[in-house]
């Protein structure tokens, strides 16, 4: 019986120790670090291979260092609040399993790039939302509202289905090399947000949005680096959506 007692039970997930290297900063500073200065700190946590990075962060916050700051809400990839740079790629901490990251090495966690850091993994999202507001993300129509719902065929809906899935996590925008260096660029998400309305048969504001995106800081800044498509946790083909907007602008057809 000793042999069976030692081997793990069927289906049991192995526990292990993982190291997380987190890029931290405190607006009020610490004894060793100036206010706002970024520094690395390592934590070791006991975790299962099927745990997510978010679980590991929770363990640190709840059991080791309550001052660690990060955003999260739903913990299931719906709200889009916990995008961060994990092992140099933008991902949602709540959708990234430890076993997919090579837990033998330290897992590197940084705030998303290109937006001002407020504390630890929390960044100021305002520039990101400001770009989104620029493209007027609401239904624009003319004439009086119909007495019933605005109807649309499945094909018409399919046209912009991909971009309706956006959860505004900013993973795409903060993975874009043009956004990192150029504070003027709207960023991929704003174009995804515009795409969702431009190609919606019920909306009539297409050309107003296209005019905004034809601007200096609009779609023409995109160099098709494809970082955004790779980063999107919702699997949206971001670069393709941007190209469709460019196509609408060059051909004048939607």
């Amino acid at each position, binding site marked *: 019986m000793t042999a069976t007692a030692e081997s793990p039970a069927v289906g049991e997930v192995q526990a292990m120790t993982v190291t997380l290297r987190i890029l931290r900063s405190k607006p009020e500073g610490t004894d060793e670090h100036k206010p706002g200065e970024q520094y690395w700190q390592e934590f070791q946590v006991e975790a299962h291979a099927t745990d997510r990075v978010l679980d590991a962060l929770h363990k640190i916050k709840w059991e080791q260092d309550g001052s660690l700051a990060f955003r999260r809400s739903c913990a299931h990839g719906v709200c889009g609040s916990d995008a961060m740079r994990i092992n140099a790629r933008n991902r949602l901490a709540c959708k990234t399993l430890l076993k997919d990251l090579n837990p033998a090495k330290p897992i590197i966690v940084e705030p998303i790039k290109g937006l001002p850091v407020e504390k630890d993994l929390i960044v100021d999202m*305002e520039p990101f939302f400001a770009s989104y507001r620029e493209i007027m993300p609401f239904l624009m129509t003319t004439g009086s509202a119909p007495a019933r719902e605005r109807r649309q065929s499945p094909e018409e809906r399919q046209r912009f289905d991909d971009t309706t899935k956006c959860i505004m996590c900013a993973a795409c925008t903060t993975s874009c090399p043009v956004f990192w260096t150029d504070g003027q660029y709207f960023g991929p998400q704003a174009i995804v947000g515009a795409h969702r309305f431009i190609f919606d048969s019920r909306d009539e*504001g297409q*050309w*107003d949005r296209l005019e905004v995106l034809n601007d200096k800081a609009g779609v023409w*800044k995109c*160099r098709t680096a494809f970082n955004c498509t790779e980063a999107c946790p919702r699997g949206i083909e971001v670069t393709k959506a941007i190209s469709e907007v*460019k196509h609408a*602008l*060059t051909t004048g057809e939607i």
Partner: protein
Amino acid sequence: MTASSPEFVPGPKIKEPRIRSGRVRPGAEQWSWRFMRISGPILVILILTHLFINLMTGDGVSQIDFAFVAGKWAAPLWQWWDFLMLALAMLHGGNGMRLLINDYAHTPWLRKLLHGALGVAVLGIIVLGSLVIWTFDPCPVDADMSLLPSFCEDVR
């Protein structure tokens, strides 16, 4: 929180909808983008043909000397070919550099300075290169005959 809570902080303002019909006219950035898309493939064809003619046909790389170049530039086709290659390559590359400067030069004076230097370099090279192509003399008077293209004998 009482009814007289000190301050009401309104949320950020959303842009007014402005429904206007009327199409969007292509702006400078769009023309720049179109130019890059069009000049890119043209350059590929121009350069690959250029390399093929120079390196793969005839005696290959060893055929290239003064006489070879002089012989090519005696034909208007190759004069125009090389001119197009020069102009498109400089404009295509220069426009790419312009975008890079936009990305990385954050202070207005630095941006102006770099854009200026870039413009001078692009125009200067196009002008100098075109001068060479169009005012080229294949048969300089006091040169060794063996270095010149064969048709120079008739000229002398």
